[in-house]
């Protein structure tokens, strides 16, 4: 009996060790004796959220390399270092401290919301400039030192509701969201709060959790029975791909409307793009957009990393690095300034700058929230078409 228990312990420990294993990537950097801007970044590159951190890492690295090739910021090169946080608040703080030991002057991160809140409170103590590319929770930028590139949860939820009602897309709407994910439930809450004011009725709100995100038949059936014309999906594209397939299986074809998390849907492996036909999403970035800036970025990204197209996380990170550059140039900073002096200078400069990025033309309010126009796109014959 006891022996079998020990064996079980060992087997479970081995399972744990294996589950701790995850993907790899590449990062190259050089150091020189001249003063450089040390930009640290934190995000998950292992674990279930690994794809997002990986995209941010690549997007930011691309921007840093481009800036360095064109002479750097105010004449000084950028050193970029990315640390893994496994999408865990505690590990994110460890990563932050590791970067501090490295000599980080500015932080581009973190990628996900909950770790970002933990790191922000440390960064506020140290007066370290923080610019999160994709931390959407309101508290991610609670300090005066923090800014963000993406829309916040409330902004996405309310903007989606506004867009649907202003364009008379539907009046009876249903939501399917991930209640265990702060991003998803955050958007849902704000959407549900804004919908009645916009003349919409939320007829069904069905949740799933991270432990059961492969079978949506029950939720879809309930939504179908509720007679919704539009299904709002504040979820990520991996789940959405499965959900769309299952919706087709039960012959349910309402209008699907998503947020920036749906971007990347068309690049899911083995996904039948015809299923996504007519899906609408409100996103600041679309890899198929016609403008020159986006096309250049997509081309450079896919050439450098040999991938089909960057997802929105990569675009946010790319813009974040250029934002730091713009703010540093506006403030006329020097690379040998301390992180606290740099932070004061950058915070003062942020509301004054306008960044023409791949996620739109962005300006910042003093509270750190970005102001940019969401682009509504619709998927038509396997491609994003701007509405």
């Amino acid at each position: 009996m006891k022996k079998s228990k020990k064996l079980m312990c060992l087997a479970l420990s081995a399972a744990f060790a294996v589950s701790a294993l995850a993907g790899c990537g590449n990062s190259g950097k050089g150091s020189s004796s001249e003063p450089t801007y040390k930009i640290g970044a934190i995000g998950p590159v292992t674990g279930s959220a690994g794809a997002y951190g990986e995209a941010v890492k690549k997007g930011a690295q691309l921007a840093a390399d481009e800036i360095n090739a064109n002479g750097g910021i105010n004449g000084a090169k950028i050193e970029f270092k990315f640390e893994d946080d496994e999408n865990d608040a505690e590990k994110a703080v460890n990563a932050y401290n590791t970067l501090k030991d490295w000599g980080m002057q500015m932080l581009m991160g973190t990628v996900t919301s909950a770790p970002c809140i933990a790191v922000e409170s440390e960064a506020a103590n140290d007066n370290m400039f923080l610019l999160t590319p994709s931390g959407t929770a309101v508290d991610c930028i609670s300090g005066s030192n923090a800014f963000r590139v993406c829309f916040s949860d409330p902004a996405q939820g309310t903007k989606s509701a506004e867009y649907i009602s202003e364009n008379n897309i539907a009046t009876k709407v249903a939501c399917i969201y991930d209640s265990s994910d702060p991003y998803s439930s955050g958007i849902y809450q704000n959407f549900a709060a804004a919908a009645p004011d916009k003349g919409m009725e939320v007829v069904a709100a069905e949740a799933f959790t991270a432990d059961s995100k492969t079978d949506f038949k029950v939720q879809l059936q309930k939504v179908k029975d509720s007679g919704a014309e539009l299904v709002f999906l504040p979820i990520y594209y991996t789940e959405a791909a499965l959900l769309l397939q299952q919706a087709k299986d039960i012959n349910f074809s309402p209008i699907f409307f998503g947020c920036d998390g749906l971007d990347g849907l068309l690049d899911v492996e083995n996904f039948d793009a015809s299923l996504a036909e007519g899906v609408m999403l409100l996103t600041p970035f679309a890899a198929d957009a016609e403008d020159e800036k986006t096309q250049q970025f997509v081309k450079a990204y896919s050439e450098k990393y040999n991938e089909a197209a960057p997802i929105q996380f990569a675009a946010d990170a790319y813009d974040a690095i250029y934002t730091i550059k713009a703010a540093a140039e506006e403030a006329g900073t020097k690379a040998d300034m301390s992180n606290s002096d740099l932070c004061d200078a950058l915070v003062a400069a942020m509301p004054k700058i306008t960044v023409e990025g791949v996620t739109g033309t962005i300006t910042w309010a003093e509270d750190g929230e970005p102001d940019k126009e969401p682009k509504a796109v619709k998927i038509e014959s396997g491609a994003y078409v701007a509405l």
Partner: protein
Amino acid sequence: MTVMKNTIKNMKKSTKSNLITYGMVIVAYIIVQIFSTTGNLSSMMQGLLVPLCIYVIAAVSLNLVVGFSGELSLGHAGFMCIGAYVSAFFSSCVGDALPGPLRFLFAILIGAAVAGIFGILIGIPVLRLRGDYLAIVTLAFGEIIKNLMNVLYIGIDGSGLHIQASDGGALVLDAGGKVIVNGALGITGTPKDSTFTIGVIIILITLFIVQNLVNSRSGRAIMAIRDNRIAAESIGINITKYKLMAFSISAALAGVAGVLYSHNLATLTVKKFDYNTSIMILVFVVLGGIGNIRGSIIAAVILTALPELLRGLSDYRMLIYAIVLVAMMLFNWAPAAISWRERMKEKIAERRKHQTKEAA
């Protein structure tokens, strides 16, 4: 001096072993304090100190169940979660109405009490099961706690507490009200009261509780049940009582670890307390030796610090970590490795004997 030597010599073996454990913790604390006051401690190490305390407490408390009570519990993170949430909720509610240290003291006591009560509640039905069945049920308990906390929304305003399950939008609060527990986003803005010193004090208290329990009459009863349930029952030991005692004390101590966790970070989400965390704590216990408290402490420290120290390897970090873990398990517990270690020990002892002989 000779008196002291004699007292040490006459000391019971268990007392000596306990004192070594306390001493180890205190020496580690003093070394860290020396490094930190001389400014030689990196930010990374400073940030790691409180998490180290948290996992040491969690590992020691789990060892009480796994090692001494002989039951495999896979829901330890669930008790941590309860302690963390309850105490963070308390601290957020109280805010600045109480001075920091007093508030934290209450938070610790409340976290321990509530986790302990849950330990009893879970323990009563669950401890009727044995072996693998208990493992499965505790695993389920951890998942239930996780999913419950995930859909819990609690807000506070002038008219009191508002509780909602599954939909935060339904929380209607007066102006000036605030949402404390926000579903998947958890609790944010908990005051950061956890410090290394408090962590070490709690480790010492944990050790005091666990070691004294193990060497007491109750502790011997607990171990008797582990070693032979039927024999223990036949001499009149109340099996349910003693098992429940070990289980609920372990739960309460895990709750304290949770309190330290929630007061160390500005954010508390339930995702942290999943199956993986329970298993990780179990790994500390297994690697350190089931029933070996000192081993649990050392294993918890090494395995918590290792992934951070390996950051220099960047992409290969988790790969190396896993390999090191497997290697350490083998070195510590594979029969071949154990006999090899024994042989080496004998060899060294022989050589020493030889040397002393030659010297004489």
